């Protein structure tokens, strides 16, 4: 299936007096219709900048310096020609937003206007995007609340009268107001506790199946993505380090950073294992080192690592058996040179 959203070679810098901060560096990422892609990375890794850069939501001093973002939704491309979001006029872009690509923003706890009732905020989103008579717009607002399982009498509530989970659901309802094909979710459950988080995730999955949109799910919590996502992309210091199916990432993580992440969260099941975490802190993006940005924290780094160009390559497998680079038709790619064929044969990783 051809991707609905194809981000290629995207770079974003923040212009600062101290020099350019290269927040996103030549990232390629695709999203297929109906797919859930998880984008995972720690604070400052550029995951939100990537999403906002691709949807042109960044303002100066942020600057997209290279790349293209091709969108080929069913309503936009009649003749099969994808459109480039980065080359669009503001008017075209306005048409795209909400109707084609919607975003559930980070810290949704505070993203609602505190002095407007839920109904008015939903109506704002509806009126801005759909030309509906007032009565129908109201019905639409009510049905959006139904969609996310909030009782209709909450339409007249103010945000402070809702729990965190309900506010988050209102945000999701709002994003779905114009039936988008791609929904970008930026840490939608981070401020919630586990039980509510799970309710919301289940709701997201159910809505996705029913309304058939694709999700780019951004989070710092890899354990969550392993359950939720079809495909996972691991980002670090503005670069993608590894992409693959959730299964491949979980069972055969290729990049040492991914392995570190997997070894960072305490597990509830199984034996109580020793956890290592990832010592050190991310690099300064104003002055990136050549090669892999993870070198200073990597326990496997070898001289070759300073020369890699950070393009993703198929993961090499053990000598026998089918290549594990392809699992369930999803390629497992990594930027780490020591697990790609030529080097792993030398037995650097054992």
């Amino acid at each position, binding site marked *: 299936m051809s991707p609905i959203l194809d981000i290629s070679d995207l770079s974003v810098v923040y212009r600062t007096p101290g020099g350019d901060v290269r927040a996103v560096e030549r990232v390629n990422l695709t999203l297929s219709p109906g797919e859930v892609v998880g984008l995972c990375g*720690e*604070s*400052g890794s550029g995951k939100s900048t990537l999403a906002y850069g691709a949807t042109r939501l960044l303002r100066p001093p942020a600057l997209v310096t290279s790349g293209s973002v091709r969108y080929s939704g069913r309503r936009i491309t009649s003749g099969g020609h994808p459109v480039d979001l980065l080359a669009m006029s503001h008017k075209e872009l306005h048409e795209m937003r909400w109707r084609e690509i919607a975003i559930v923003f980070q810290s949704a706890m505070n993203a609602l206007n505190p002095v407007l009732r839920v109904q008015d905020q939903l109506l704002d989103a509806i009126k801005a995007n759909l030309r509906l008579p007032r009565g129908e717009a109201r019905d639409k607002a009510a049905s959006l609340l139904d969609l996310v*399982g*909030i009782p209709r009498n909450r339409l007249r509530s103010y945000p402070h009268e809702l*729990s*965190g*989970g*309900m506010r988050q659901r209102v945000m999701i309802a709002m994003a779905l107001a114009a039936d988008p094909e791609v929904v970008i979710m930026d840490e939608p459950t981070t401020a919630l*506790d*586990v*039980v*509510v*988080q*799970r*309710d919301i*995730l*289940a709701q997201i*999955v*159910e809505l996705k199946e029913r309304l058939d949109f694709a999700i780019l799910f951004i989070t*710092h*919590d*890899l*354990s*969550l993505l*392993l*359950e*939720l*996502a079809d495909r996972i992309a691991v980002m670090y210091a503005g670069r993608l380090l590894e992409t693959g199916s*959730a*299964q491949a990432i*979980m069972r055969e993580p290729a990049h040492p950073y991914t392995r*570190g*992440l*997997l070894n*960072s*969260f*305490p*597990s*509830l*099941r*199984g034996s*109580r294992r020793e*956890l*290592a*975490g*990832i*010592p050190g*802190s991310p690099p300064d993006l104003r002055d990136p080192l050549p090669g892999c940005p993870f070198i200073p924290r990597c326990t496997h780094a070898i001289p070759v690592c300073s020369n890699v160009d950070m393009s993703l390559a198929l993961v090499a497998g053990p000598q026998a058996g089918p290549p594990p680079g392809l699992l369930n038709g999803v390629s497992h790619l990594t930027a780490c040179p020591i697990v790609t064929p030529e080097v792993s044969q030398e037995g650097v990783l054992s």
Partner: protein
Amino acid sequence: MSEPIISSLPAGEAPAPEASAAPAVNADAEQVGEPAEVRSVAAARGPLVMEATSLNKVFRLGPRASLQAVRNVSFGLYKGAVVALVGESGSGKSTVAKLLAGQERPTSGLITLNGKPIDVRTGRAFRHYKSQVQYVFQDPFSSLNPVHTVGYHLARPVKLHQPGVEHVNEAVIALLEQVRLTPAAQFEPKYPHELSGGQRQRVSFARALAAQPTVLLADEPVSMLDVSIRLEMLNLLDDLRTRLSLALLYITHDIASARYFADEVLVMYGGQVVERGPAEEVTQQPAHPYTQLLIASAPDPDNLGSTLKSGNVIAGAAGGVKAGNVGPAAVGCPFSSRCPLADDKCRRDNPALQLLAPARAAACWRLDVAAPSLAGGTT
């Protein structure tokens, strides 16, 4: 320094005056039966340092309404041991910490430190108390003053709580090294905005340690940090706990980290402790339906999408739990409004903790169904 100040009421007298003047939202939920005496596993680590007995806290919401945020909570903190308080937002876990920190006064109940009832009535007494009991806040982004340097944040408590110290600067450097912010001299002149979240939380830890406390109350110390940093922070806390023999209260909504880090786990729901016991046993063999729900809700990497995608949200014994936007019940067991096992008795009477094993207890009428293997032996 004479009488128990903080327990202005004799322990156990109920209902509290505020509650009788304005009936609590959940005033009818008095627990039935005497709560069990649990022999805490944390006691194996060291002597009892701080003890809370039958703590109750009622907040007045208005002239005719009040809310009981904490009901009948008792536990001990032991030297060198970690006790975890686990529960969702609004379960009362932070209120318990504030009661222990002396920031709030209990409506009834007794808190003792080294065997003596705590005294926080006057400024001087409170300061003396704070030098022994310190609090680490959840949010390292707002708990440090943006206009002051790291050195200032640490020098102040050193001057305040260690008046004999001559070389404050050396004490500050030593504190920074203790939380592994090295080279310490480089961090001292920095401002909070120049630090990452993890580094800021280290400064918070150092600030708490500046008072040379015996008890550390850590309220969600890692939940605002990235997953990759959390573990490092927990390891640091663990290391400090061992080296300085701190009695640690660890408050979290992440029961997996409690398993990894704590000796004893207390699970709170609706202001009550619904289950307590050794961390490993509570997480591996949860007895209370709420604990079972918490554990089933934690992201499980080994699941690889199965439970979420099949639409079967909550697996296991707690199947059929109602969505999280149903609040705790006002009458009877607080969890009865969400519990799939709830029957008429659960909706009428609020259970007290019942002993399951010498170190384990749960407050549930339906333990025979919820955890048959545990309930069989003792009831």
